[in-house]
């Protein structure tokens, strides 16, 4: 090959590639299908909202509408992405889920979301627990950015087979009677631990238990209603901290970090016998522990009465190109039927109090959990639910406290050192 032709080939190839580049730049917005009337609605959620069948129903009622859901497994990752997209003013879904801990945060930029009050949400706000509706409404009461989906009514999930091995009762009622209080719960844990040795532990981690205790005892946690940091002066935080770490000191914790590989493996391998269970946790356990553990789990009441941990809202970003449809979808998904459908699919407890008296919810059982009466269990907790106010900076503060607690649990720091760290990190995070 002569130099000349080779060069020409190279030049031709380079030219072709530049053409390709130009062509690529041209293939931007052809997302929506060819037939003009089709609309694609994007829904962004995290975890499992149990909406598949509801989407199908909505699509049946709205010919030409296609719903596409993206689900992000990691809540932290989801919040980061959503924040980036809301801040940049594009790229979020037509409907986005907002977790309880983040909703105050997004209230700061309420203008970025459609105000449901302008679309008549006040007329049927008895559809939600009062505080649930208020949580996604600005302080002046004029702007509601999200409508409630579920609440995280608390119960306690436990492994019957492990209880039996440890010589403890396995019946739900009897187990519930074992632990009217968290202190009693800790004593049961010590009994269990003495019987079982070191291969299995009573609870998965201090942090999970801590969050449950905290969310059931207080109407304020880290911030008061004026958004002032009160971590150091709030006895509820101190009490939850001491109670949870006492369990760790008693040696009944498997010390597994929530959502880590090891924690996930712990469900499968039976590394712990109990875990504090908000309603949404049941589907997680089922997926994580797998079919081989079906029937080994059961559910009973949580020590210290009910409580709420977690739960979500659906919102519509103002940049959505299909606002009317998106609003319709949110209305449908958060309606009594929608919430019930989600409960039947994955066990997420409705935030609609009128449903709590319906047989469909009250008599519901969960096959995987030895037919536990999840309706009764979670509703019992839900009726006594108290609203908990979470400040805008709840997430970073909670991260700081959880990290400090883990460092105490792992023996890297003493409890008091860890507490000091928690307070100073919380102050830094609260800014």
């Amino acid at each position, binding site marked *: 090959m002569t130099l000349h032709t080779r060069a020409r080939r190279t030049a031709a190839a380079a030219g072709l590639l530049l053409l390709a580049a130009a062509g690529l730049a041209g293939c931007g917005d052809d997302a929506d299908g060819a037939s003009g009337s089709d609309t694609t609605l994007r829904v962004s959620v995290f975890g499992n909202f149990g909406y598949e069948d509801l989407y199908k129903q909505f699509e049946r009622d709205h010919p030409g509408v296609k719903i596409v859901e993206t689900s992000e497994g*990691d809540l*932290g990752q989801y*919040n*980061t992405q959503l*924040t*980036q997209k*809301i*801040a940049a003013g594009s790229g979020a879904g037509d409907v986005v889920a907002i977790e309880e801990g983040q909703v105050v*945060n*997004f209230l*700061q*930029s309420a203008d*970025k979301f459609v105000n449901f009050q302008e679309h008549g949400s006040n007329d049927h706000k008895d559809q939600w627990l009062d505080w649930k509706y208020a949580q996604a409404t600005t302080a002046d009461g004029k702007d509601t950015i999200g409508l409630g989906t579920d609440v995280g009514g608390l119960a306690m999930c436990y492994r019957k087979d492990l209880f039996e091995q440890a010589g403890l009762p396995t019946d739900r009622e009897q187990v519930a009677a074992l632990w009217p209080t968290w202190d009693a719960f800790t004593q049961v844990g010590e009994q269990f631990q003495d019987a079982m040795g070191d291969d299995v532990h009573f609870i998965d981690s201090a*942090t999970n238990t801590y969050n449950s205790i905290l969310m059931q005892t207080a109407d304020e946690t880290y911030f008061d209603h004026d958004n002032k940091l009160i971590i150091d002066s709030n006895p509820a935080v101190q009490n939850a901290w001491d109670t949870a770490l006492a369990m760790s000191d008693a040696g009944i914790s498997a010390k597994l*970090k*929530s*959502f*880590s*590989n*090891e*924690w996930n*493996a*712990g469900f499968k*391998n039976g*590394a712990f016998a109990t875990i504090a269970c908000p309603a949404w946790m049941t589907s997680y356990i089922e997926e994580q522990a797998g079919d081989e553990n079906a029937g080994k789990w059961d559910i009973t009441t949580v020590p210290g009465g009910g409580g709420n941990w977690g739960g979500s809202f659906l919102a519509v970003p103002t940049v959505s190109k299909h606002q009317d449809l998106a609003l319709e979808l949110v209305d449908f998904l958060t309606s009594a039927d929608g919430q019930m459908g989600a409960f039947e699919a994955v066990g997420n407890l409705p935030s609609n109090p009128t449903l709590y008296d319906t047989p469909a919810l009250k008599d519901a059982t969960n096959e995987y959990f030895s037919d536990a009466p999840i309706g009764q269990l979670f509703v019992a907790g839900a009726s006594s639910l108290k609203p908990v106010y979470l400040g*805008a*900076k709840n*997430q*970073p503060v909670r*991260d700081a406290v*959880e*990290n*400090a607690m*883990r*460092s105490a649990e*792992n023996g*890297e*720091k003493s409890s008091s050192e860890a507490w000091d*760290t928690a307070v100073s*990190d919380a102050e*830094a*995070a609260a*800014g």
Partner: protein
Amino acid sequence: MATLTSTPATPAQRRRRARPGRGPRGEQVAGYAFISPFFLVFAVFGLFPLLFTFWVSLHDWSLLGDRSWSGLGNYSKLLGDDHFWNALRNTLGIFVLATVPQLLLSLVLAQLLNQRLRARTLWRMGVLLPNITSIAAVGIIFTLLFARDFGLVNWLLGHVGVEPIAWQQHRWSSWLAISVMVDWRWTGYNALIFLAALQAVPRELYDAASIDGAGPVQQFRHITVPMLRPTIVFVTLVATIGGMQLFTEPLLFNSGANAITGGTTRQFQTLTMYVYEQAFTGQEFGYASSVAWVMFIVIALIGALNALLLRRLRGVQ
């Protein structure tokens, strides 16, 4: 301007350096035309975001809420921020822990690959294999290998009587595990770069040393390392740029909740992770931007130091 070539300048180049700038007009125009695509694209997609970030760093800028002018407030806050210093310490620590053994190993490996071998290309491909694996894959695989309860590493250590180590829990162990990930991916790659430089070292030198009775270790110390010095400095520079931006490996290593904080006591949170945490968990876009800028300055300083070093070395030669 330091030119990073290891070859001495040709007479033509030297003549040109003595008479800088000014080519004929056509050459001037062509020169600017040829470099313009790079500068245009960079101006829009590189420089603009960078300058905008600096602008943001002069504000109290909440990602979702209010923003107000704060001048250099973020920068003075940063100087008293323990978490920032901790992140800087981790970044530099992991960088040193990862880079020093990596460079030594790469050099030794290059020396070995420079022997007369059968199937030379296959060996070379073998050491380059890790480099085609995406960082995300590396993070996922190694995090499984280093798992506390069921990881292969702890299982192997168990055979020699070592208790299971919670790799994420201690500063030393987390640094070590992350360094292993980095080194696994980059050692072979750097070895090939050193090998290329080694090829330019005249064999006569080694032969002469052999005749003088120098063993392989002495040859390595007295011939290989000195001859490769410019390349070593350059590879260090590149490793610095990468090392200061370490993000994905430590993030994936901390599987589960609060991954971005790099461990319970932030024992392996790097600067980039801290930037990310401040911006997206803490919503402090302004403050995060100032951390990012300081990070950029640190990288530039180390880069300048490298360039200076290189110059000095070239002068010595």
